[in-house]
Every structure is written in structure tokens, then in C-alpha cells.
């Protein structure tokens, strides 16, 4: 028995299906925001802002977990302190401060520009924040690593 005739041409159903959605960069489509290549300062700042946000969030919980060692006792806390005052741990602290500085300063830029304030100076705001951040990070690094 032959199939009932339809008005649709052959392959119409397949053509009606939605096509794939291309996205930037490797990985899943939802990570398209993270592709830093061929981006301007704004796109890269957005990606770094999200990454540093995750770093700060992880550090927050890590910090709470470390503080809970105080509940264990004096000896546990003292041995932990000797570990975190090593040069390698202090270097990690510099990285953390860098993340906080970037997230904070870029957040100020995003809050201002995102409210319609200083829109035409958006790029200048970014670079001003970058200069302030690098200066503050340099001072903090020298201070933490004992050069000051």
C-alpha cells in the first residue's frame, strides 16, 4: 500500500528542523563567553571577572574551612601557620590579592558604566583601574614577600 500523498516536498520535515548554533571557542556552547581570542578589552575583562569571581568564592569557603581548624586546637593551628607562611603559600596569596583587586576594580567600572555613568570613558576607566590594580598588587607583593 502506498503512502498517503502530502503537499510537502520530499525532505521538508528535515529542512524544518532547527540547525545547529555555532559558538565561539572549544568546549560546550555555554562556554562561548570564555573564548578570549579575538576579543576586545571588555570581552576579556568579562571572562576574567567571572573567573576571579569563582576564585574568590572558592577561597571564601577554603578560608572558612581553615578557620574551623581553630576548633581542633592550638597545635593544629600552629602547624598550619608554619605551612601558610612559606614562600610558595605567600605567592599564592599574591595571586589571590590580584584576583580580588581585578574583580573589585572591574566591578566598579561595570557598575558605573552599566548604570549609564561614564559610558564614553569606559575604556579609560578600564585602563585606569588596571594601572591602579597593578600598582596596588606590586606594593602588596613586595610587602607580603618581605621586600618592604
Amino acid at each position, binding site marked *: 500500500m502506498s503512502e498517503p500523498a502530502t503537499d510537502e516536498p520530499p525532505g521538508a520535515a528535515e529542512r524544518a528542523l532547527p*540547525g545547529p548554533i555555532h559558538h565561539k571557542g572549544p568546549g560546550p556552547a555555554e562556554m*562561548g563567553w570564555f573564548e578570549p581570542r579575538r576579543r576586545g578589552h571588555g*570581552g576579556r575583562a568579562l571572562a576574567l571577572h567571572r573567573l576571579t569571581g569563582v576564585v574568590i568564592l572558592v577561597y571564601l569557603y577554603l578560608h572558612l574551612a581553615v578557620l574551623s581548624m581553630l576548633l581542633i586546637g592550638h597545635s593544629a593551628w600552629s602547624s598550619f601557620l608554619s605551612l601558610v607562611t612559606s614562600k610558595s603559600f605567600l605567592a599564592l596569596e599574591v595571586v589571590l590579592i590580584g584576583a580580588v583587586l581585578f574583580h573589585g576594580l572591574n566591578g566598579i*567600572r561595570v557598575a558605573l558604566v552599566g548604570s549609564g555613568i561614564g559610558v564614553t570613558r569606559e575604556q579609560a576607566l578600564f585602563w585606569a583601574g588596571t594601572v591602579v590594580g597593578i600598582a596596588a598588587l606590586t606594593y602588596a607583593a613586595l610587602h607580603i614577600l618581605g621586600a618592604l
Partner: protein
Amino acid sequence: MSPDQAPEAASNGSPVELTETRRFRVYRYKRGDGQERFDEFDVPVGPRTTVLDALLWIQLHRDPSLTVRHSCMHASCGTCGIQVDGREELACVCSVKDHGAEMTVEPLANIPILTDLVVDMTGFFERYPHAHPIIRASEPPVQDSEPSDGDHGEVTLETEVTLHHHPLHHLHRAAPPAADFVRLEDCIECGLCLSACPVAATSHDYVGPAALAAAERLLEEPRGVRREDVLAWASRPEGAWRCHVGFECTRVCPTDAIPAERIMALRRALLFGQDNHEEGKP
């Protein structure tokens, strides 16, 4: 045009000296195939070859099944938007010499693909406010008898033109000269901004830069559209507040329509009221 002629010879009719060969990695996808892939083509290029010239050369001499959409060939129609080496470009004005020996050509991101380099712009246009009227510089505005919200100061000699015979005259409001609106009228609705937007990659419900910029344009010249309706439309979760201030849309816009600045002006209007919405725009 022979295969040995540079591709731009097809555009202007005069033979152009070949200088080198470039390799193009071109994205391919056909409905029903189910597989996306890249094909490579070596294309002879001259000093003025554009990416569109090269793609049409491939179509003519190597693979007639390659589908490319284009129309005006001079960056006015906005139909040939693609990604070249990951950056949004209009193929018709994207010079090959600005890229390396091998370049990757892909369709726009964040927009469903129809076939090869052609994307389905239906969803892009559906993002626009439904009440969006057609704005044309050829419709000189006339002064309304009762100025309402959204009017723009005094009527100048250039705008004080009575066109009561015009079928749309009841929509006209007193407005500055059309030259003040040149920037958004330059929007060619090519979709490059939506492709470049990092937020659109995460959220396909986001209406995107072009539609929001068009909404902000309505605040400048409502033409019968209620201002509060525009602001309510823009303040939805997938509207102006979804933007993350990346300014990628402005960076890739081929006509300097400054969509990011428009979105910020829209936010300012939402935050601080109607009298402040224009601050921040160049």
C-alpha cells in the same frame, strides 16, 4: 573569469594581478547530513581580494554547493556577516590581506545555521520590540499640536515641515534633524553584534544588542509608541539588564551604530528617568 584570475575580477570586471595563494578553511553543514566539518580550499588572491570574493571564487571553481549569502557587495545590506578567524566581519568588505596565509571562515555564532555560512535570521528579527516602527530619514517630522513625552526641544527650520498629507503624519513628533539619528539609522541589522556578544553565548533568550539599541532609539523618537511600553519591554530579565558590559557589540559593529552605548543609555533611562537617558552617548 578563469580559475587563474584573482577573485575580485569577478566583482569589477577587470583582471587583477595574482600575487599569492591563501588557504581557506570553510565551515560546512547541510541539513540532513548531521555532520559539521571544515573544507580547505586554496584560492589565488590579489591585493584587493575580499573574503566574499574568495568564497564566490570557491563556489565558482571548486565547490558549487558552498552556500554564501550576500547582496549589495558594499556593506549596506548586512547579509554577508560571517566569522573570519573568530572575528565577526562583513565578508564583502573584509580584506584577505589583513589575515594570515590560512584563514578560518565560519558562520555567525549564537544564531541557528541554515546551511554552510548562512544563518537563520528569523529569530534575530523576532527579538526586536514588536511595536518598533519603521524609521526613515526620508520622513521629515512635523510638530505635534500637543507635545508629549519624548519630544526633543524646539523645532528647527529643518524639521518644521508640514506633511499633513502624509499617511503617517499623525505619528510624527517634533524632533531634531535626521542627522542626529544617523548612527542608529546606520544599523544594517547584520547580526554581528549578537554573534560577538558573550552573554548571548550563555543565554539564547537574551534579546541582544541590536534589538536593545533599536528600543533606545524609540526613546529618542517615539513616533507614537508609548515610552513606558519601551522601558517595560527593555527591563525584562532577558532585556537591558542581561548585558554584562563587554562592549563586544560596539567593537564589531561595521557601521558604528554603538549598540553597547545605546544599551547603557537605556539602562540610564530605566534607573534615573527620562531626562537623563541620553547622557553617555557620543
